[in-house]
């Protein structure tokens, strides 16, 4: 089977460039090829949804895009930088500076108030404390939680927690916002709120990659990429 290559218009600088990326998991003597040669280019300011059933390899793709996992073969350039030869320390810096994550499980630290959760990426970036607090509160205001900066995650609803997570993904002004099933644990009202936030981010010119298995969520994006059996199978571009 030949690898699928996706070539969008050449109008903007690429944020993501994957070339023939493969990922093989090895458990004892059993090998499983989760990605079987994926090439993908996502440009600055795009809003992309990655869709696919469980086991299709979309989570693996997301982990590789987020530098949370390593490739078995192929090359990956993120915002112009080759992450292929980077060590743990450089990768940590890339995740810190270039990528904002939004997870299905929110992944907030329960013992910290909202603003302390949001400032975490800045504290690893070495931003001074006063500036960190100001930027964290500004990010929370941007997602409509200006009144809740001092609340701990346990005191917030699911939708509010996910908005805290979005604020945390934004606070370091990353090149790429990467969301893995961000609405998977939310009711329809909260889902609408969070998707509205992604629409706004896109409107502000941010690059958003959203992974989902829900068609209606995916349809908010300008471009839909389908993953099946470790390959990019289909492209839908909305005009």
């Amino acid at each position, binding site marked *: 089977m030949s690898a699928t290559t996706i070539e969008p218009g050449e109008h903007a600088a690429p944020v993501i460039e994957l070339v023939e990326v493969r990922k093989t998991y090895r458990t004892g003597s059993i090998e499983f090829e989760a990605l079987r040669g994926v090439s993908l280019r996502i440009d600055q300011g795009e809003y992309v949804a990655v869709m696919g059933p469980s086991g299709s390899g979309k989570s693996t793709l997301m*982990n590789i895009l987020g530098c949370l996992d390593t490739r078995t073969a192929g090359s990956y350039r993120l915002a112009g930088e080759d992450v292929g030869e980077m060590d743990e320390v450089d990768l940590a*810096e890339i*995740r810190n500076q270039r990528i904002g994550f939004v997870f299905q499980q929110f992944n907030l*630290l329960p013992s910290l108030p909202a603003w302390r959760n949001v400032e*975490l990426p800045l504290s690893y*970036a070495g931003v001074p404390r006063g500036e960190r607090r100001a930027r964290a509160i500004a990010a929370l205001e941007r997602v409509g939680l200006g009144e809740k900066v001092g609340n701990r995650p346990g005191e917030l609803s699911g939708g509010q927690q996910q908005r805290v997570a979005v604020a945390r993904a934004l606070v370091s002004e990353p090149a790429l916002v990467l969301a893995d099933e961000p609405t998977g644990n939310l009711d329809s009202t909260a889902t609408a709120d969070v998707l509205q936030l992604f629409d706004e981010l896109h409107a502000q010119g941010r690059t958003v990659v959203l992974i989902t298995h829900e068609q209606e969520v995916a349809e908010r994006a300008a471009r839909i990429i389908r993953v099946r059996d470790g390959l990019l199978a289909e492209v839908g571009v909305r005009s």
Partner: protein
Amino acid sequence: MTWFDTFRTGWEAIRSHRLRSALTMLGILIGIAAVVLTVGLGLGSQQQVGASISSLGSNLLIVSPGSSTDSGGVRGGFGSASTLTVADAQALTSDTAAPDIAAVAPVKSTSTALAAGDTTWTTSVVGTTADWLDVRTRTLAGGRFLTTADDADQAAVTVLGSETATELFGTTDAVGRTVSIGDLSFEVVGVLTAAGSDSTTNLDDQALVPMSTAANRIIGGSTRTAVSTIYLRATSEDTLSAAYQEAQALLLTRHGISDAESADFSIASQESLLATATSVSRTLTVLLTGIAALSLLVGGIGVMNIMLVSVTERTREIGLRKALGAPPAAIRRQFLVEATVLGLAGGLLGALLGIVAARVLPTLLDTTIVVSPAAVAGSIAVAVAIGIVFGVYPATRAARLAPIDALRSE
């Protein structure tokens, strides 16, 4: 991440897991308190032994019958008590044969009942000579001591220890009163000042009588000239060893023994007793400290165990922090700070507990506990080192986790 942030993060982690942190500290705390207390007990017993041996008297040599002395100067078992005699003691006072011996006090004792009116008291009745007071460096609280004339006369006079006097006569002055020993009435001519007790005997509970009186009128028997111990005082500390040589040579000659190895008496000095006793209590201290160190090690393994569990429990948190851009060094530092703070807090509290116990226990147990600043500082340093060493492994393991594996774990 700045050190301030690292410390804050570590402190928050400790506070948000109060029970676990408290249990970790408890392990260290008990270990440290045990070290401070056992080292303190060891030092205390060394001091006690030293003090009680010093109370024997200065520049003192003790001649005991019927056993040999080994190369270290340690007395062997006591044999028959009849090889030393009053005549031996008399010979040792010679200025020509034993010029470095200042004073000689033979002693012969028995345990018997004393009676004053309706009051009876069983104590050690000690026959000795006028030099005893000088040799044992004791003083009188009142009256006079035994004299050479008393000995020559087999006089029925006695000098009482302060406790014996109190038991028989209460708070009234005992001097001039009469006590009965067996069928005889003795006049109390003097009372000794209190001196406490040495390792084996109460120095304040005894009745001293002239040697001849004890031998002939109280103890009797077929070996009337035999004595149980001869105390010698050297003229000075510098002549102690010369006095030892002279006493040994003289007694060997008198007993017709050519080989010092087969002597039928032994001579011990206060220093040799002190050295022996100190080495015994030092061995005890080493043993106790070893046990305490072991408990500290167990506490340390507890810390490592808890740190490992803590890392496992917080794998998701570590994965999240890595996803947000924490480099391995920041994760490592966070866990190191946690372990070090736990070790330091446990160490300080343990030292505090040890010091408080060292104040309280002696009043309950009649022991001496000397808190050694070196033991306190050392054990706190060890506690912190335990925190660091046993924190390094889990911290390194935590830092090495791949972010996605850490995030996926439950």
